[in-house]
């Protein structure tokens, strides 16, 4: 089997004047523009209903915009096959979203298998990925998701998202359901991986403290709009909106 083309470590993402209105008339996004540089980690922060998850899901075409354009490395995603696009973008949902009837090792090698990697390569990759997130293929590989703790499942979800070495990973509240200690532990793992891998990461969270800790830039969202976009220090120094200010105060309290 010929080895696939080495993918670039990261890709730039763009949303240009994007709106999304659902069938029931609710507007999730209202003319949002956002550019994520290659290798950058950006956090989308806001309450539920602010549109942050919808914005995230535009990039792997799990949501189609009602207006505006979404681009990956300058190319409109509307011109890409969604299946091919998704296999090239990592994804970590809040609760892991592991397939409960598959063993851990099979869950991890899901995307490589979809991409047609041969068994030997999948196996070594699975071992590598599980070790990367601090699990062992011997101990955890043969288990089923229900047999692991929540934190371990989230690590597996991370390993699964990274298995095919995608240049972009989308994370939707990946640490939201975990207790404080586990979350802190995984934050460390996240920063470590971010450093090693240099991928483009988009992280949805409602926790500003988490965003401050993990992201290069933060987009604060409310009612389908981005209120402020900037590095954590800039947000802290010059909140541009009363809501941002309220969030900062809540974080400090």
């Amino acid at each position, binding site marked *: 089997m010929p080895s696939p083309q080495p993918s670039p470590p990261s890709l730039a993402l763009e949303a240009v004047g994007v709106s999304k209105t659902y069938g029931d008339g609710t507007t999730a996004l209202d003319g949002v523009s956002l550019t994520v540089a290659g290798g950058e980690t950006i956090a989308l922060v806001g309450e539920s209903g602010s549109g942050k998850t919808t914005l995230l899901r535009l990039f792997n075409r799990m949501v189609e915009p009602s207006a505006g354009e979404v681009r990956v490395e300058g190319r409109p995603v509307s011109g890409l096959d969604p299946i091919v696009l998704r*296999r090239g973008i990592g994804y970590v949902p809040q609760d892991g979203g592991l397939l409960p009837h598959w063993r851990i090792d099979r869950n991890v090698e899901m995307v490589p298998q979809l991409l047609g990697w041969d068994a030997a390569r999948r196996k070594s990759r699975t071992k590598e990925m599980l070790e990367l997130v601090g699990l062992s293929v011997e101990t955890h590989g043969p288990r089923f998701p229900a047999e692991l703790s929540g934190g371990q499942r989230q690590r597996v979800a991370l390993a699964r998202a990274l298995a095919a070495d995608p240049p972009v990973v989308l994370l939707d509240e990946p640490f939201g359901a975990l207790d404080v200690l586990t979350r802190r532990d995984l934050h460390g793992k996240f920063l470590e991986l971010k450093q090693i891998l240099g991928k483009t990461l988009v992280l949805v969270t409602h926790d500003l403290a988490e965003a401050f800790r993990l992201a290069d830039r933060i987009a604060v969202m409310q009612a389908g709009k981005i209120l402020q976009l900037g590095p954590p220090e800039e947000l802290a120094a010059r909140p541009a909106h009363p809501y941002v200010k309220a969030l900062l105060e809540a974080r400090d309290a």
Partner: protein
Amino acid sequence: MRRLALVVLILLVAGPAAAKETGQKSGRVVIGSKNFEESRLLGEIFAQLLESRTDLAVERRLGLAGTQVCFEALKTGALDVYPEYTGTGLVSILGEEPEEGASGTLNRVRREFLSRWDLWWISPLGFENSFEVAVPQELAEREHLKTISDLARISSRLRGGFGHEFVGREDGLLGLERIYGLRFGSVVPLQHALKYQAAGAREVDAVDVYTTDARLLLYKLVVLDDDKGFFPPYEAAALVRGETLRKHPEVGAVLGLLAGSFDEDRMRALNLRLQEGKEDEAVVARDALRELGLLKGVQGSESSETQAAPSTPGLSHYLWDERDALLRRTLEHLGISAVALLAGILVAVPLGLALERSRKGAETIIRLLGTTQTVPSLALLAFFIPFLGVGRVPAIVALWIYSLYPIVRNTYTGVRDADPRAVEAATALGMTPRQVLAQVRLPLAAPILLAGIRTAAVLTVGTATLAAFIGAGGLGEPIVTGLQLASSAMILSGAIPAAVLALVVDALLGWVERALRPRGLESRK
């Protein structure tokens, strides 16, 4: 799965094929009968006579459920011949008022059946088997009952016990009430064979009986005179398809030999042997034909040796001595059930998936499908006779319909409710909708889906006992016959294996369910 289907198909096809093999003869006739002794006996007599005196291969479909089933089967060509009574033809089939006199009735039904359906009444057998009303001898003596009019006088104090068919017929209880002013204190619809026992035990006071029924003697019942001439004459005759007579003229000629051969006394004596001694109708029919000198190439002396023991056979007789028949019925039963179930799975699973995909109206369609479960099994079985005849095919179709609902419902809900987070993640990581269905949703739905198939399987195996009513064979055969003969041993010889079979199927599929349950789902919930 595919191999199992193949085996079942071979079983089903090989049966009839093997029959055809032996029948390298000039053709085939199918003989039917209704599900009481005299009708079965006459059917067997027709069959043996045709076997003895023609080159035709004879197939028996004896014990079909009532007039409607036999008549529809004859009309559609599923049967060639069955014994019928002129009065039944006139009143039940033509829906006319009773006529005066036996010859008037015969002429009327001959003319009408010929012109409407090309069906021929041939060789009236020489006896009438009418409906009559009978009461226990002791009651008749105490109340001085001689006629039905006498009975009407005191009927409000009495309990009537009548056959299901009789209760609803204009030439039955309805007409009796109108003509005689009968008003029973209560009326219990009873299975034919049980009426005699019930009257004998004084559970009921008046019953409808047949003239030639020997159980009148066994249970000490007295027939009341039909003083207003209410009941039409019921002459027994062979009812034959015109097409059969043209293709095989010898059928008409040979059956004609029976004309006038039996009177009421002889018939009652033959029925007595069936009802009391529980002898096989094949033995009784052979003796009857031998007495008449109609069997070719058979010596008269054989009779006594081959005759069945007159003592009442017990359950062990049916389960052990007749184990070949038991095995054959079990295989038939399984064959019918398996084909119906496999066809059910093949249709219901894709249907459930399609409903889940479109969602629109799915609940309504599933609810409509659910109403099939409320149709009485026997009614559904009978419903298909005009289109599909009698035998295995309509039975399989009816069972197939029963199997659909549980499988469709469970496929639908199982796939619909499959862990939405797993489905979403699989999609977001690049599985095609087809891959999501095959690798995520169906495996997650498997436990529910298999539970649906298991429900359908037990339902099918259970309901398949009723298939015997329309001549499909199976373990229902001895149940149906046993009900006619009021033989508990015979009923149990079908009911016990059927129940065991249902339990075995349930346990087997329970095991399959556990074996196929995706492992990761076990520790959940």
